[in-house]
């Protein structure tokens, strides 16, 4: 059941009206009161660093730390975060706002304390990369010492056409830059032009690592045909050529195609949001062979609604089910499996028609792969046309849910319009608000602040 839903904007930033979209979250598995979240949030004082959100009380309250090097009009660029499970060290992947003109700039960062106020040191710094996605874990190294294993999925456009990439370090905790990070291409097929932007990773605590990417197989104008490809490594990706454990029997190449012949229109639009690529992957911590994937496409072509699909493999990614769950006009699917083997599924969907269209964010848990229907819980619903977007992505090219023990922890972005009807299961705002008048209020408690997009945190337990 839903434990709490919290607007992340702290009281001291009651005057902000930024488009805080594309959220991400990390929860320290060793102490789930410790959390870090991110979004396209600039430093309110326009300093040199972009902020992260931190919580030390299980997400009840959140504060900002301006520790990410490079601050632009929307904070840093793409950002994702991960706690190493043993050390509690925070790892961050960003597209720095401090980048050369016409370039994206990947940086991988590290902080030994998530509450630190010091600028995070840079471990990796490389141009031409998109959408870094951080997953961290801890395991024993070859000498039997605990070591942080950090995997950063990214779309390295300097490697066209085989752009699906994982930067990884098997001992990232203490060494100076690059802290053991090395770049590995996981695309073994023949994409047309490039792979899709999202490269997602799931880590099983016994050392099985899955990665999912989208291989573009045909491009005509903005029309893309693609496949969802899953690769796997069975020993923490320690080999010289990792992620080679799965082979597609149809063509003999590394990487199993979980879905083929998929179509999408690049940069389409839905409810002020752009479309192009959605992806998620999660592994069952109770069974390394059970792995779930989700993606978005337009089945049947350009006129079809953007649709989210969820599928499962029970044999380590070698064979895949058909669709177990679909969401028409869905966006930002998130998957996580808790310690009971239950799957949590977050999705944002555009519902209704015309000016009544709304973005609705739901979360559901299935214990049996939807053999019995799971009832989605509406976390948030708000008019899709308000507030007007200031940039893309409007809500985000991704959101995120993670699991620890039997709990799920997630973040999504949405309108902060203060109407309790928009939060049918309750919400807590930290920022100043007049619920009766449906107005956000500035620091003085009287000046009205316009609605904007805010990040929201929720936690759910079985």
């Amino acid at each position: 059941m839903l434990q709490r839903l919290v607007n992340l904007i702290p009281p001291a930033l009651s005057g902000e009206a930024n488009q805080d979209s594309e959220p991400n979250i990390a929860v320290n598995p060793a102490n789930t009161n410790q959390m870090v979240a991110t979004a396209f949030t600039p430093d309110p004082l326009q300093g040199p660093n972009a902020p992260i959100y931190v919580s030390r009380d299980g997400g009840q309250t959140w504060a900002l730390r301006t520790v990410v090097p490079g601050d632009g009009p929307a904070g840093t660029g793409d950002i994702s975060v991960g706690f190493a499970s043993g050390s509690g060290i925070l790892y961050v992947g960003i597209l720095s706002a401090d980048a050369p003109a016409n370039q994206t700039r990947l940086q991988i960062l590290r902080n030994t304390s998530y509450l630190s106020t010091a600028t995070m040191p840079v471990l990796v710094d490389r141009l031409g990369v998109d959408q870094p996605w951080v997953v961290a874990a801890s395991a024993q190294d070859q000498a039997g010492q605990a070591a942080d294993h950090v995997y950063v999925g990214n779309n390295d456009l300097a490697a066209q056409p085989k752009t699906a990439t994982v930067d990884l370090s098997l001992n990232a905790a203490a060494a100076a830059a690059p802290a053991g990070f090395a770049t590995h291409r996981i695309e073994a097929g023949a994409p047309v032009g490039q792979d899709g932007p999202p490269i997602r990773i799931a880590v099983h605590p016994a050392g099985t690592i899955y990665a999912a990417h989208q291989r573009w197989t045909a491009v005509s104008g903005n029309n893309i045909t693609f496949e969802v490809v899953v690769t796997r490594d069975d020993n923490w990706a320690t080999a010289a050529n990792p992620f080679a454990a799965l082979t597609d029997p149809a063509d003999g190449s590394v990487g199993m195609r979980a879905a083929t012949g998929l179509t999408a229109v690049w940069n389409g639009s839905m409810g002020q949001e752009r479309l192009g690529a959605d992806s998620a992957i999660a592994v069952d911590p109770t069974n390394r062979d059970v792995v779930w994937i989700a993606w978005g496409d337009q089945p049947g072509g350009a006129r079809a609604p953007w649709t989210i699909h969820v599928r499962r493999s029970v044999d380590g990614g070698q064979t895949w089910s058909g669709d177990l769950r679909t969401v028409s006009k869905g966006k930002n699917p998130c998957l996580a499996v808790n310690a009971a083997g239950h799957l949590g599924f977050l999705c944002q969907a555009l519902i209704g028609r015309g000016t009544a269209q709304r973005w609705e964010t739901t979360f559901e848990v299935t214990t049996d792969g939807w053999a019995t229907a799971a009832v989605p819980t509406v976390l948030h619903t708000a008019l899709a046309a308000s507030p007007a977007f200031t940039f893309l992505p409007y809500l985000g090219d991704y959101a995120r849910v993670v699991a620890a023990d039997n709990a799920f922890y997630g973040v999504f972005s949405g309108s902060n319009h203060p109407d309790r009807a928009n939060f049918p299961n309750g919400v807590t705002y930290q920022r100043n608000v007049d619920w009766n008048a449906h107005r956000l209020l500035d620091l003085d408690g009287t000046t009205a602040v316009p609605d904007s997009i805010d990040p929201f945190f929720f936690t759910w337990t079985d």
Partner: protein
Amino acid sequence: MVDAATADMMRQSQFVFQATVQSPGRSTVSDIPVDDHTVVVKIDRVLHSPAALAHSAGMDVTVQLAAGSAVPPAGEQVTFFTRPVAYSDGIAVAEVGRTTPETAGELTTMTAGPAAGHLRPHPALDIAQQQAEERLRAHAAEADAIVIGRVTQLGQARGPALREHDPDWWVATIAVDHAEKGTVGDTVQFSFPNSRDVHWVHVPKPAAGDTRLWLLHAATGAAAELAPYTLQDADDVQRPDELGRLGLGGGGE
């Protein structure tokens, strides 16, 4: 007249305010280490701030005083020049510098005394404005062409690449009314990223018919194949009557 030290503090600061010291050795922000150089102050007047904190007068703020600096006693009014540290239920900032007690006293007189109805801007505001002017002038000095003109044509330069952060280059044609800098004819073309992606949100998007003061930069790399100049910064587009702020001394064509 603002002294050089104060101007330097201003350059390093994002939040400048007059405040009254409340409690040395305390913090209003959880998680922030407290030592004998941590003080809570109440903001009396915001002097320089982005919009999000413009209404923060009356708030208690935690200040991490500069190492080795004197700790002001409770009740003393100080003008703090600060940079951000943390935001939660309160704000924590780190001191870049402060005005001397003598200056603070002078300001108190200025804002609360008989001249209260005839306030001069606080020196910090003078500095902020001066620095904004300096930044714009420096930006103008870096521009390769500066013109006043109207957008007569807009066109997509090439199909956008299928990337989330692709700039989606367009080319604008300007009918030049006045050329202040650079060698341009009756028309000039520049490229600009028309993408609404977060990576390009800061670059202005010209519209047909816009008459503006354009600060143009010589295009390089792939952009040079599209047009001789490019827009690359929020300050590249100004109102025509802002020409005098650029500090170029006139003399245009």
